[in-house]
């Protein structure tokens, strides 16, 4: 044991260098740099190797974090990449966009001490570096089972399922309506958080593992779902959630009021030099912008607006800062980039005659906890005011968007429109139709990349069991 037990005290937590705010808002590149081997090693060496690895426990895919930290400390990059891929299909992506401060790093024993181990940055380093140096998943010992699975949706859930199936000797074909894989990774999440070349690299890796992608193919429109059931031994659905939740207040349909996701998708497409007809590009240069909602999508919108050159960007949120659902890190980044936060403000109405001119808000305070354990905001009478603005982006999240053909195939839904899976007489993530499995946002409601990955992986395991391999 060469390791020095007090390394965590002597070496403070460090993250890779971040571009200065005034520079990074001029482009859409990722704002964080990368560790080099020495930094990664010394940061990894801060790990205490707890008897109870809270990081691993909290991680939705239960990454073997202390083990790969140790491998990195010892400089065994390929072994670390191998181990990292044992539990996660998209580690370099999760390393970038997981809300680590709420998951592994938030649970890290050192988070209560002098700063959690920089797990996310090391996770990203492992796969980025290993791939650069030629490492590839080793499937040479896997024997093809002859089984084939069709996957609808090339988002994180679908990709994870394809990855695990390939490792089990099951070939899969992934269909997606879009022209590039990734789902929200490519079209929703802005590239300053996740550069699109990362997704492209992952596509090459998956293709190298035998996964086939059939893109620009909308199941139910340009190809029937029935044909999938005919062609494949089982089907996995990872189609996401695309119903935008509305605020339900007057003025939401005024010109100048935009939905968050179409706004982001259109902007991403411009970056990708692609075009997706239903999403017109919205340019907020020189405009005063108000974003409603304090989640991660809201953070992506404010920062995109800043990069478009908006004259001012404010985020209006009905609870206080401590109760924001989004990642602390992203709130911090937004503040650095010049976003103004208006906490404890409940929007009541969007004002404007033929286009938006302002948002009427009322002040709130936190009342008693609701059923979800979070304290509900209550309006304070007589504190209404109007915030003038040129554009409003509504980022209140997404609800289920079940396809109209689900019922034809016995794909049962819960009352909220999410797909019903599992239960006592079903395998985990198996739908009411035994041949069909589902996972990701369409099952759990809009959530995280890592949870979608988890469900894709679990579903793949269930599929293998269902197929008897």
């Amino acid at each position, binding site marked *: 044991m060469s390791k020095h037990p007090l390394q965590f*005290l002597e070496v403070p937590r460090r993250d890779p260098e971040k571009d200065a705010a005034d520079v990074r808002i001029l482009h859409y590149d990722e704002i964080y740099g990368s560790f080099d081997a020495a930094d990664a090693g010394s940061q990894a060496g801060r790990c205490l*190797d707890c008897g*109870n*690895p809270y990081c*691993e426990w909290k991680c939705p895919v239960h990454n*073997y974090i202390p083990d790969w930290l140790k491998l990195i400390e010892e400089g065994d990059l390929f072994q670390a990449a191998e181990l990292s891929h044992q539990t996660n299909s998209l580690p370099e992506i999760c390393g970038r966009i997981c809300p680590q401060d709420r998951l592994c790093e938030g*649970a890290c*024993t*050192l988070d209560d001490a*002098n700063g959690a181990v920089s797990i996310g940055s090391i996770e990203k380093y492992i796969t980025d570096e290993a791939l650069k140096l030629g490492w590839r998943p080793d499937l040479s010992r896997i024997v093809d089972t002859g089984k084939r699975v069709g996957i609808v949706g090339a988002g994180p859930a679908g990709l994870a399922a394809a990855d695990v199936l390939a490792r089990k000797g099951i070939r899969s074909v992934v269909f997606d309506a879009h022209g590039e894989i990734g789902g929200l990774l490519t079209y929703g999440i802005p590239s300053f958080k996740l550069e699109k070349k990362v997704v492209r690299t992952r596509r090459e890796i998956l293709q190298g593992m035998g996964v086939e992608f059939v893109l620009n193919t909308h199941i139910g429109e340009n190809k029937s779902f029935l044909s999938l059931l005919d062609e494949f031994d089982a089907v996995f659905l990872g189609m996401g959630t695309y119903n935008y939740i509305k605020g339900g207040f007057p003025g939401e349909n005024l010109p100048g009021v935009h939905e968050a996701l179409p706004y982001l998708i259109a902007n991403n497409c411009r970056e990708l030099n692609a075009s997706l007809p239903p999403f017109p590009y919205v340019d907020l240069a020189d405009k005063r912008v108000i974003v409603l909602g304090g989640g991660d999508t809201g953070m992506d919108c404010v920062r995109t607006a800043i990069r478009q050159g908006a004259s001012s960007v404010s985020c209006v949120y009905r609870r206080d800062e401590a109760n924001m659902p989004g990642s602390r890190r992203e709130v911090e980044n937004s503040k650095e980039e010049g976003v103004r936060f208006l906490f404890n403000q409940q929007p009541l109405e969007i004002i404007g005659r033929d286009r938006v001119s302002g948002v009427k808000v009322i002040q709130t305070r936190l009342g008693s906890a609701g059923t979800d354990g979070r304290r509900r905001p209550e309006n304070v009478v007589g504190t209404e005011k109007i915030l003038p603005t040129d554009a409003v982006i509504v980022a209140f999240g997404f609800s289920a968007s079940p396809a109209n053909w689900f019922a034809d195939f016995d794909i049962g839904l819960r009352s909220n429109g999410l797909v019903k899976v599992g239960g006592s007489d079903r395998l985990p993530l198996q739908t009411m139709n035994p041949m069909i499995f589902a996972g990701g946002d369409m099952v759990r409601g809009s959530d995280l990349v890592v949870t979608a990955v988890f469900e894709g992986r679990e579903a793949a395991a269930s599929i293998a069991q269902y197929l008897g391999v």
Partner: protein
Amino acid sequence: MWEPREPVRQGGLIRYVHDGEYHCYNPDVIAALQTAVRSGDYAHYERYASLVNQRPIATLRDLLRANPVGPAVPLDEVEPIENILPRFDSAGMSLGALSPEAHEALAIAMNRLGARSNSGEGGEDPARYNSERVSKIKQVASGRFGVTAEYLVNAEVIQIKIAQGAKPGEGGQLPGHKVTEMIAKLRYAKPGVALISPPPHHDIYSIEDLAQLIFDLKQVNPAALVSVKLVSEPGVGTIAAGVVKAYADLITISGYDGGTGASPLTSVKYAGSPWELGLSEAHQVLRANDLRHKVRLQTDGGLKTGLDVIKAAILGAESYGFGTGPMVALGCKYLRICHLNNCATGVATQNDLLRSDYFIGLPEMVMHYFRFVAEEVRILMAELGVRKLEDIIGRVSMMEQLPGETRRHGRLDLQAIISDCGIDDSQAQFCSDPHNNPFDKGELAETILEEVLPAIEAKRGGEFRFDIRNDNRSIGARLSGEIARRYGNHGMADAPMTIRLFGTAGQSFGAWNVAGVNLELEGDANDYVGKGMAAGRIVIKPPTGSRFETKDAVIIGNTCLYGATGGQLFAAGQAGERFAVRNSGATTVVEGAGDHCCEYMTEGCVVVLGRSGINFGAGMTGGFAYVLDLDRAFVDRYHHGLIDIHRINPESMEAHLHHLRSLIEEHVRHTGSAWGNELLDDFRTYLPKFWVVKPKVADLDSLIESLRAAA
């Protein structure tokens, strides 16, 4: 079969891994408990308790269900938590293992609850005596670190730790980097030098020896209850019966689950036995032998919730020890890195920064924990239809074995555990005698005390004379206890009294001796002379007119000066085996010694003016010795592990020369030893035949200086 499609599983036997081996203190359990004790909200505790009480079957008690004895009773008719809390002890965890902050927070919490905390091995800062930071249970473990009369009289319970459930048969080791200035002071050792607690007590080789130690403790502190901590193992019932007959007031049956994070990996698994086995056996054997009413029975080892307490009560325990639970309440996250001194929660470290900045524990958190457990006990009692905990102690008919979750569970036969063995109902189920008083009333000790007490109270010294016989045991201990209670270990140094005794002393002559007590025995003494001596002087010489050569005759028995922390012993004759084992401060001159002399010694100075036996200085990490080696064979008899030996060069080592000479002079002055005289007369000839024996890590030139500094 090797299946390339499946990755190699991580296992998680030692360290928790999701989907691997179940761990009772897994992250969910720890997080739930910490949330509960920080909020003080019983609803949060219920979440913790249900995680524990509904875990997959992990222990024998998970296969047992307690059934109601009648209709449920209203909760307000069940005895209040104030009746239950005094039954809770925190388990012995040493200061040294724990940070002072954690150790004190635990003591404060237990004292405020009306329960008791346990000092663990390693002494206690006298500043904590008579305050709410005091540990009411003082532990006497094999290392005897810091065990002095003053330490013992400041206890309500004195616990003899025979072994630890999690690692039976193993000693302990406090790694050097955890031995800070303060720890070293309390343990009478040197900072930075590892301290070894030997596996056995060197003064206990039989049940009679244990009885002797119990007697020693009852002499020094007659008010205290003496407890004996045993390990759950087959046959523990027989041992427990012996321990009651040795006059213990309390017995703890310790189970394997009390695994500390500091246990070596080899003892984390497959060492020790569940307390369910040992407790039920002890309870049954004690009842069968009409002994149960004489002793309180405690169990510990992985107790976590009120349900655990209920089940332990039904299996026969009336008192309950908790180790890890209160630690977790104080912020411990079960990192299992306690031995590295880098505990990031500041609980198990001596690192200043970690202690001051990262320790967040408060007594209130521990208090919340125990109140919650006691409240859960009440709620369960109400459901079971009983109003007092006493009503279910030993009531095994309430217990039912469950089929379990697997076929193997179903094949276990636990009937032996939940049987009353056909013992008559009239036999007690719990202790009713307030004290288990020894048959030996220690009459001589009382006589001496009566005569001497006025001199003690007036602090005026004096000289007293008594005859002594070999059945007068632990003479001196009673006296030292009374002095320590009034003045501490050293408070009477300026008013010494001399007690002259004539005859053969029984065992433990001069045990727990303190300053102001100078015992001068003309005759000889049995085993354990000067055991646990802190100060004062013991002189033993043959009766005037004896004709034998002192250096060829044994004058004191085995295991003398065991665990002594100071004082002087001069004996004109040979000492038996294991002389000065675990000496941590006494200075002594004898004229020969048996095997294992100076084993595990940490401080003090031992002069042997004659042959000494094999294994000299094994595990010796401090102090030094001068050994006369007339047959030039010492080099084959000392233990080469931790010590080295040197000749005394009269030119360059003048300090040693003078020191040795003055010790022999003192020996002659007190004992009149003819052999001592001869050595002095011909000192030039004998000097080159002496060895200085010292730990390899110690510096030859500073030995004497550091001895003075420690004194």
